[in-house]
């Protein structure tokens, strides 16, 4: 996603190494995704659903 749009930065965080970040973002299971400090997605989602959840302001032309 980051590669496709210069406005997006994606960071993979090793949760056990950065316990302070894990606590701050309430990581109780992995994978857990945090978008712009506010949106939380727990677990792996199919691509379309992930974009729906991560970027709710971006229209989905063909919602499933």
């Amino acid at each position: 996603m980051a590669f496709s749009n210069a406005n997006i930065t994606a960071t993979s965080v090793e949760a056990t190494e950065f316990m302070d970040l894990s606590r701050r973002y309430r990581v109780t299971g992995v994978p857990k995704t945090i978008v712009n400090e506010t949106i939380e997605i727990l677990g792996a989602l199919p691509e379309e659903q992930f974009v729906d959840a991560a970027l709710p302001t971006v229209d989905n032309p063909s919602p499933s």
Partner: protein
Amino acid sequence: MGLLSASDEAVLKQHLAAVDSRVSLLLFTQTIGGSESGPVAKQVLDEIASLNDKIDVVEKNFVLDTDDRAKYGIEREPAIVVLRNGEDTRMRFLGAPTGYEFVPLVEAVLLAGTGNLELDPATVQRLAAVDKPTDIKVFSTPT
């Protein structure tokens, strides 16, 4: 002794043969008083870089290279920034990329080195509409 077995290395080398653009892996570590995983991160990156001449590892000092830290927004170490032909791909890794972070790192190197997005064309079209800075963090664990 390497982290990868000879057979894993052979398979990885085959995958990385697709890399045809220069990929630089910037590794931010702190030598004195830094994280214990810094040397592990370096070993992982060195092993990946040894498998294709187009991939290199550029070591950055977390304490001294403050301009680069600011440029890439690095606040923790070890941290890895993936560049394609010297340009930031905005793909980052925090912590030693072992366990479940290893495959995403290899995929990031392949993406940077080939430019081949694995995303559905419809997703790429939707992502093009993102017009504000968007920060995505994905937490994973080594096992």
